[in-house]
């Protein structure tokens, strides 16, 4: 279908009053959780999954997307004002943004972040409109072996980009894959790894895992290190408005950040860290004011913030067209689709164009709402930061427990929540990335299904995996991505030894 016409129909869906309300709730919640430390968009979507189970799918998914976009806006506020970025995507923003706030230029820093996010989010959403139908055309020819190969690429790149070393990332991923094995095998009806516990027959609940790792793990980690860190909120002093010079210095970084963020987000490489840091280093190289970098250069806020939002939009492309999540929040959104029995992919574009295009159209609306929420109303969000930390985390744990028990009212579920919480704490302490566990649990069973389907069609001939040119290429990419870090490190070591 013509993308413009499809988008027009989507707008009709997105502009329905109920869906506008869902979008508004989503962006409000998203901004709030983005601003608050210790709670992010992935956790929020996880908590809302059981609550939204009975609601309209289109509305809930519009709300989830609003949370995703809102989280990206809110995260920058925290990074700029207290220098503790809520998520790794805001790390680069904190570098210059917090310096600007300390120098009394917090207002323009927040403004360039919000406007840059809006520009980037809007351009990137236009990117989705044109890229998604094209990718759907490609994906429609995919066989199960191609999907399996694609998931292998995602597994490897996600583990490699999220962790400090590929072994750590892969360890997290395989723990997730192991958890994904639990429960009844859909093809033969036999149960795996249930150890006689009936609650485990349905498999590990995604909500329980995500909430345990993100909420309980984070609370334990922060509580255990509270005596080590002093946080200071920088008040927003001076004017919120950007001067003409601020505008002149911001618009190019916004566009360049978008150019980094969207393609990298759309590739199944995932992660907003790479584009934000690429953007930061590029702005640092290109700036006319190199002496300001390290002391609060506005380019260092504008670029990474745009890159960060553009990559969030980018991750929606593989999610919607291939059913492939490349970030923790995208993985939770996939779980959101799955709870309504919807499988993102070419078929969903054909069967439920209203839902898919309604979702895409709502992204434009969410972006516009976020610009308004984050510019004139930024003071309101800053006030959220003054919630005392003990009450904040106590509240997070209460909602975490509520979300878990609403998903599946059973004591076994609560025990698993506590166990995953301890696991999340230990993973933070010993520096294992969290997101690959969640992606492993969600994507592992899908990958297994595609593999078995491929091999059943080929009557058990494993060569089918390399006979399709697409699948062979993807598997080669996955293999290269797996081996490259080790080879590069080996070369680096070789060099340093000969020096």
């Amino acid at each position, binding site marked *: 279908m013509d993308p413009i016409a499809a988008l027009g129909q989507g707008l009709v869906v997105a502009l329905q009053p109920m869906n506008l309300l869902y979008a508004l709730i989503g962006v409000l919640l998203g901004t709030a959780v983005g601003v608050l430390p210790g709670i992010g968009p992935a956790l929020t979507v996880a908590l809302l999954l059981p609550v939204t189970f009975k609601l309209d799918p289109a509305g809930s998914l519009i709300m989830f997307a609003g949370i995703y976009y809102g989280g990206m806006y809110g995260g920058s506020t925290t990074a700029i004002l207290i220098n503790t970025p809520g998520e790794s995507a805001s790390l680069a923003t904190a570098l210059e943004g917090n310096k600007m706030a300390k120098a009394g230029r917090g207002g323009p820093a927040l403004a360039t972040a919000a406007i840059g996010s809006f520009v980037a989010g809007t351009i990137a959403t236009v990117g989705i409109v044109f890229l998604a139908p094209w990718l759907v055309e490609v994906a429609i020819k995919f066989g199960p072996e191609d999907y399996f190969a694609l998931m292998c690429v995602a597994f490897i790149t996600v583990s490699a980009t999220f962790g400090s070393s590929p072994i750590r990332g892969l360890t997290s991923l395989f723990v997730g894959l192991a958890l994904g*094995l639990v429960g009844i095998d859909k093809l033969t009806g036999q149960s795996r790894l249930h150890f006689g516990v009936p609650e485990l027959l349905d498999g590990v609940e995604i909500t329980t895992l995500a909430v345990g790792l993100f909420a309980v793990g984070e609370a334990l980690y922060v509580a255990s290190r509270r005596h080590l860190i002093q946080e200071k909120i920088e008040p927003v002093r001076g004017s919120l408005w950007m001067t003409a010079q601020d505008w002149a210095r911001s618009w190019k970084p916004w566009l360049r950040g978008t150019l980094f963020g969207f393609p990298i987000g759309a590739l199944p490489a995932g992660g907003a860290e790479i584009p934000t840091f690429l953007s930061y280093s590029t702005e640092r190289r290109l700036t006319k004011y190199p002496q300001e970098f390290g002391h609060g250069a506005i380019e260092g806020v504008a670029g990474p913030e745009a890159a960060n939002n553009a990559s969030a939009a980018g991750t929606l492309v593989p999610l919607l067209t291939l059913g492939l999540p490349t970030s923790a929040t995208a993985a939770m959104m996939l779980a959101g689709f799955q709870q309504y029995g919807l499988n993102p992919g070419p078929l969903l574009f054909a069967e439920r164009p209203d839902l898919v295009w309604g979702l895409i159209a709502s992204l434009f609306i969410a972006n516009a709402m976020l610009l308004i929420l984050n510019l004139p109303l930024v003071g309101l969000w800053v006030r959220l930061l003054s919630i005392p930390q*003990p009450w904040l985390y106590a509240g997070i744990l209460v909602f975490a427990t509520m979300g878990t028990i609403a998903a599946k009212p059973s004591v076994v579920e609560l025990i698993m929540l506590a166990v995953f919480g301890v696991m999340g704490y230990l993973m933070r302490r010993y520096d294992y990335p969290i997101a690959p566990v969640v992606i492993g649990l969600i994507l592992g069973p899908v990958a297994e299904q595609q593999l078995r389907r491929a091999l059943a069609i080929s009557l058990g001939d494993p060569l089918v995996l390399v006979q399709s040119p697409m699948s062979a290429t993807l598997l080669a990419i996955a293999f290269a991505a797996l081996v490259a870090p080790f080879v590069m490190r080996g070369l680096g070591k070789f060099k340093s030894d000969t020096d």
Partner: protein
Amino acid sequence: MQSQDRRVDPAGIVVAALLAVLAGLIFYDMTTLTITQTYGVGPKAMPIVVATGLILLAIGNLVLAFRDGFPEREQPAHLPIVLILGGLIAVIALIGIGGGFILAMTILFAATAAAFGRRAILVDLAIGFALGLGTYLMFSKLLSLSLPAGPLERLLGG
């Protein structure tokens, strides 16, 4: 390079051991599956792949442990961890014996707040109670989702 002090990190050895145990569990469980698929690979294939991967990663983590591959860590405070986990265990026990959602949340809120350094236990218990009551009412009345009920919840007619 020779001068670098290479200490072994016990945490890495524990991680490696845990991964190996997990692999063993998956492998053992796999052998108990009896039905196989006619064509292609059956339900045993994925467990074998995952277990093999875990064994390789156990070795990888062992290498990290011997090569300073683990991050430096500060000594954590133990009391907050005990308080939060204690709160969670109290929730599990309370809901297990039918004490209800609201009381469980009251205790969890107060325990977590104490873990983060609050000393006004009565105030926190009151806030936790209000929060538990609020969410319970919202869930049962507005969203008609059921949360575990105890004596208090039955009093509210939930």
